């Protein structure tokens, strides 16, 4: 059976401890995939979920994801119905209390039991520790090269990390050569909806227009690797995994979302960010509705872009990006 994960709140280490390859589905972010997905989801779903639904070969795949936002959990349900295998959806608490953290750990334990039931294997401490250490190593190595990479190249690296097994990712990093030095430009933070594959063009557009993406608070940017589990000998590995994922730089959906802004503000300060590009894909309320607060709380000029997947390199977006960049010269 194929396993497919769709959210960064599902620790892939847990699936890897069962010997499973569980790539995270990064949607292509093309108009065609969005249209195919819309036929399965209805028009009101967000572009990311539609593209995901429209791109995967769903037959037989078991979808594993989190009840993070309305769109994601219902897209998982739809994907599970389309596949014969169904879906495994864990609850991801929105509040940040100790009780919520314990609930999240409980959800991971439920997921482990379901994976055990479906694979006929038991979750063992040794393989889980190995999986955690491997992913911690990968994240550390990606953080080490981060500041030398352009925004597009770093996101491409994150996409690769999300889809490759730990073993293959380590092999890839062993031979990784920085594709091109980062272009100088106005240092910006990118935040908002996750960046799909085809939207690497959009990041390139930013950087060709005089902006330099030095920080990326999306879940396909710095937030993907800015944490480690840091397991010690005495730790229960599943407990440590739950703690680390719950306390990682959070998605904007947490309530209150002060932790997200604390993280983003830290990036702004540490990396000399002068401006923010806040981008929401069509239908993503979580990010689109937050733009006015982001402008205030991050204290930098903010370009608010609401984009469909047909927009990545469109004249409309190009003009707005260029005008924004021009305002700093």
């Amino acid at each position, binding site marked *: 059976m194929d396993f497919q994960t769709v959210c960064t709140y599902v620790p892939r280490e847990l699936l890897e401890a069962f010997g499973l390859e569980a790539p995270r589905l990064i949607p292509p972010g093309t108009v065609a995939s969005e249209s195919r997905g819309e036929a399965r989801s209805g028009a009101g779903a967000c572009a990311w979920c539609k593209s995901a639904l429209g791109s995967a070969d769903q037959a037989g795949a078991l979808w594993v994801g989190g009840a993070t936002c*309305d769109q994601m959990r219902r897209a998982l349900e739809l994907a599970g119905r389309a596949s014969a295998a169904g879906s495994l959806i864990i609850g*991801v608490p929105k509040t940040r209390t100790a009780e919520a953290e314990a609930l999240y750990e409980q959800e991971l334990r439920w997921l482990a039991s379901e994976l055990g039931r479906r694979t006929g294997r038991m979750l063992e401490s040794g393989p889980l520790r190995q999986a955690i250490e491997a992913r911690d190593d990968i994240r550390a190595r990606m953080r080490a090269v981060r500041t030398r990479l352009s925004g597009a190249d770093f996101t491409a690296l994150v996409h690769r990390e999300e889809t490759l097994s730990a073993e293959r990712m380590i092999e890839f990093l062993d031979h990784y050569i920085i594709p091109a030095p980062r272009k100088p430009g106005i240092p910006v933070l990118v935040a908002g909806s996750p960046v799909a594959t085809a939207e690497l063009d959009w990041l390139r557009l930013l950087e060709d227009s005089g902006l330099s993406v030095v920080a990326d608070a999306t879940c396909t940017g710095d937030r993907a690797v800015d944490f480690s589990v840091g397991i010690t000998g005495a730790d229960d590995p599943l407990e440590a995994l739950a703690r680390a994922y719950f306390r990682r730089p959070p998605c904007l959906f947490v309530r209150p979302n002060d932790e997200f802004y604390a993280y983003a503000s830290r990036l702004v300060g540490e990396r000399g960010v002068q401006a923010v590009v806040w981008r929401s894909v069509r239908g993503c*309320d979580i990010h689109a509705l937050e733009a*006015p607060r982001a402008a205030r709380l991050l204290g930098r000029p903010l370009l608010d872009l609401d984009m469909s997947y047909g927009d990545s390199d469109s004249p409309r977006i190009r003009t707005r990006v260029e005008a924004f960049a021009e305002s700093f010269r």
Partner: protein
Amino acid sequence: MPARAAKVDYETWNAEFRKMISDFGESAGEFSAPFSYLGTPRCFVELEGDSRLRRLWFDNSPAAHRLWSFLLSENDRLAAARQAGKKIVGVMKDLGTASILAYAAPEVVAFYPDGAWWIPCVMEMSEGLLRIADAAGFGDEVCPVRATLAAFLNQAHFPIPDLLVAAVGACCDDMSCLIQRLADMDIPLVWWELPYRRGDTAPELVRFVAAELERVRKAVSGLIGRTITDDMLSAAIRKANIVRGLLARIRDLSYGTSPAPFPALETQICEMLAIHFCSDLDECIRVLEDVLRTVEGRVAAGEGVLERDACRVVWVNPVADLRAMNMFEDLGGALAGTEYLFRHALIPIREDRPPLEALAEAALRDPMIGTAEYRARIVIEEARRYRAEGVIISGIPGASHCATEGLVIREEVQRVLGLPVLEISVPPIADALSGQLAARFEGFFDVIRTKRHHG
């Protein structure tokens, strides 16, 4: 002698009201309890700006007058409560649980600011709430509940609460984003988690939610300066169960009888009262008792407000434009079950266990925090219980949960029951769509009648 059951237009409704006043032997506008909230329909239009009433059709019973008056006078009631020194708690999103906790203390009045989503409809956009929401970044892509944000910003519709109790978790992204915005307004706010529920409610999830509600209890206790005890909570639960029991009987008679003894619009309002009792729990019980007596009387007399052969339909989701329910009935439909997103507020709360656990159990029945298949099962149960011939899924434009779950409900209803399903979308003012909506209703009823006669 009560008038024969009928639906009447606004002018007739006002005339009926004047006659009712003379029957009561009272002078207009000077009622004593239990009619303290009774107001002329015209005054709600002319003084409050509730102009949509002019375009609606109403049940002609005194009980329905009382029901409407009770609903429409809520903001006055809240203002009076504040003047009387009561604490006002704004409860958000859980729809029917935290409000009971607040009502455990007699010095507290609780209401759902979420209810402001109907203001643009009731006032026919004259209040400008959606424009204010637009300017605040909550545009058409968001559910009409964005009117709530605007009502907080312009402070013209309800008193700003002394405390906000906000459920977040797996319930609704639109509301979650909206409440995050309210958190900047310096109103004391307590967040509590309403978690994702996969299937049946696990005991550990009940314990978790009970602990969340304990935080809410502490916050409300802190507001009033004394502890809300388990005994106080149990008493509030018993009263809430009286409301739920009355509603169960009203629903059974209204949705299970042909001809329908009470119209769709009024039964919808009755159901809504279960959420927070319209800011007066005792009067809420009296209003519903009155409605139940009326409905029972009509059923016993074989009287109804619709044709006996109306097409029997389960209605899914509340409509943003109340007029859509009138249109549905005018064209030949009758409600045979509902799923308005607060089913959990209609189910009796257990009285044989610690009150916070009982409330947690009740909260965890919320259809929004479960799967779309769970909602589909509720719809299927309703259809079976009330012998429905079809299902209408009334989408709420911009509502994040509506985007995908209609598809699942449709598939499940068709797979399990083989009933026809109609999906529509109703904005706050649907006048521009009325031709299209009417055609779709008529086509749908044609399908039902054809199936009725030809299988």
